[in-house]
């Protein structure tokens, strides 16, 4: 009869998988066992799993620390195996599976697979990293009150790029520690592709805010873009780095995004004074190249602005 024995860690992650065609399998620390464990809390001849012609049976061989089944608290001397049972002994665990054990359905490739492969292309990966470094350098250049020489530009660009590279490297390291494939380059490729999309969404946001008047509430919807991109980044990082159900991945990515943005939002709220005597307005201006919208007339501006008076009067009444 066939039985599959999986050695698993305490997080139920698979370490080794064995398939036996014999009637009896012995497990213990001594070298004549079929499965040899290094766990010091396991006896030299700890247990055996035997086929009785009808069932597979777990037998404890008077071990010092005993055997436990699934989450049971009682030591077990003899146990009839059901497929999927987990036997705990010493600090080790094994899972026993019979050949007719049901398996989950085949996962189709996600539609992101194509995107991930494309980004993973060495040319595109290098382009994304270089583009990111260039933008990082440009941001430094723009924020510097004086002129910037090429060395300063490069040092800053490389510095910021390395700093941002720690995120995909960290994810790769964690997935490696969790016995998954590290896939460092894929993580780098996806992360930098999305970092660049975030830069672009910033530019897009500025263009929209610059061109549209405050009559268009769309400007506030656009601030959702970076949140969506962050969610996508984390989702893809987890998709590449860890095997988990789609639902779980979505929940984790949503939670991290919520903590990142929600936390920032709460921090901002807590810092906001009860009353501000200064106006809060959108001061985005861009060079003439980015002006796409037609200008309004003065009369239109005056009539739009006039609507504010009723609003502030109302809020003055409310706050009295």
């Amino acid at each position, binding site marked *: 009869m066939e039985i599959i024995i999986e050695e698993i860690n305490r997080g139920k992650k698979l370490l080794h998988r064995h398939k036996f065609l014999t009637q009896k399998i012995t497990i213990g620390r001594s070298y004549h066992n079929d499965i040899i464990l290094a766990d010091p809390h396991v006896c030299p001849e700890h247990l055996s799993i035997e086929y009785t012609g009808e069932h597979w049976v777990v037998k404890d061989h008077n071990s010092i620390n005993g055997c436990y089944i699934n989450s049971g608290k009682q030591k077990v001397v003899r146990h009839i195996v059901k497929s999927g049972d987990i036997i705990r002994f010493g600090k080790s665990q094994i899972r026993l599976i019979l050949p007719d054990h049901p398996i989950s359905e085949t996962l189709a490739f996600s539609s992101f697979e194509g995107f991930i492969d494309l980004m993973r292309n060495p040319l595109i990966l290098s382009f994304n990293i270089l583009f990111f470094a260039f933008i990082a350098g440009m941001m430094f*250049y*723009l*924020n510097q*009150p*004086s*002129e910037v020489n090429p060395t300063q530009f490069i040092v800053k660009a490389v510095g910021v790029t390395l700093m941002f590279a720690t995120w995909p490297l960290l994810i790769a390291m964690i997935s490696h520690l969790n016995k998954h494939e590290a896939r460092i380059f894929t993580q780098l490729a996806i992360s930098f592709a999305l970092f660049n999309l975030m830069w672009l969404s910033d530019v897009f946001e500025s263009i929209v805010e*610059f*061109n549209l*008047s*405050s*009559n268009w509430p769309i400007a506030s919807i656009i601030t959702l873009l970076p949140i969506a991109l962050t969610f996508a980044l984390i989702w893809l990082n987890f998709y590449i780095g860890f095997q988990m159900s789609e639902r779980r991945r979505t929940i984790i990515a949503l939670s991290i995004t919520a903590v990142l943005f929600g936390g920032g939002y709460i921090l901002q709220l807590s810092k906001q004074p*009860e*009353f*501000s*005597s*200064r*106006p*809060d*307005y*959108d*001061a*985005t*201006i*861009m*060079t*003439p*190249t980015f*002006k796409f*919208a*037609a*200008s*309004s*007339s*003065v*009369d*239109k*501006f*005056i009539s*739009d*602005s*006039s*609507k*504010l*008076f009723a*609003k*502030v*009067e109302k*809020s*003055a009444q409310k*706050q*009295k």
Partner: protein
Amino acid sequence: MKGFITLLLFSLSSFAYATEQAEQIFHQLAPSLYQIRLIDNASGEKSSIGSGFQITADGLIATNYHVVSGFAQHPNKYHLEYLDHLGNKAPLTLESVDVINDLALVKRQTKSTMPYFHIASHAPIRGEEIYSLGNPHDLGMIVVPGTYNGLKIESFNDRIHFTGSVNSGMSGGPVVNKKAEVVGINVATSGNQIGFLVPSDKLLALFNNYKKNSSQNIDQQISTQLMANQKKLISTLLKSPWQKKTLGSAIISTIDVPFIRCWGESNADKADAVALLVVTNCALDDNTYISSDFFTNSIDIEFKYMRSKKLSDLKFYHLYQQHISNAGPNNRASKNDVSEYQCHHDLVKASNSNMNTKSIFCTRAYKKFPKLFDVLFISASIDKGDQALISHFTLAGVSQNSAMAFTKKFMESIAWK
């Protein structure tokens, strides 16, 4: 030489005469002079002091509004009392105010008719000797001789320019001519023998108005005065000539009235500056005091021209944006006085102008004085990659009509050369 001695003798005698006169005036008028005290109810101690003088036989006393403003704004926190020349203290009631001219009428109880100050029927002549009375720094009543120097032209609301020391605590004290008639009321100082007085005709107007209608709500009175004053001010500005001037390669307008004064500054001397910066700033010289944390009726207009010297357009605009990001109000106001600002922004081009701008308009409403607002406008030119014009103004305490008429005229007055 002989002439010189005569002149010296003459001036000595005139000095002696002035002193004597001051002494006489002081004695004669002392019973009608008061120290006005704002007393904090909780601590029972005075929180500010000023001077006042009686103007009717039945105990009506004139002083500055800013002396009694604490009581006018927070009647539950404070009360008013007077201290007369004999050291008697008794409570006062607030009867009427004029915030524009910083005047107030308070009243004491009287048992019999009392001596009082008469208000002069006509203004003094320039150079005439006048005497300011008051209680500086709580040192007791004093008299300060000085000279009448006409009305201050840089002031929208009339103020007498008085050459003589007006010190803190003398606020609200009378200024009299040799006949002991009130010609003005001490109101402010700019140090070094320059003082400002409210002309007595303003007091007369307030007094006549009070005789007609003695039971006015103070807030309502202030509200009416602010409304009338802003209307007069803004319509004067709109009717006055707006002079076109060039600032760099932009055309701007400044309003040609004496009470709005302009100043200029640039960084043309700084060779290493990345951009040329030229600023013109025009402002109304005076504002109206409502309380120690609420001022209104101020006007500020600012133009800033920038030209990039060696910056790329992108970097120049990045710098430029920082210049328009932090506009704020120019008048002090607290949460109890005003709402928060709300703003509108759009890209605008006036039909008569060749300049495209990003324009931002913000306003906040007054809580105690309905239909009055503070407004703020800032616009940034957006049609030249290497040049920029920022046009900015703030108006405090204006009606919607005044604000919008001013904004429209302002927006239509800027262009490129």
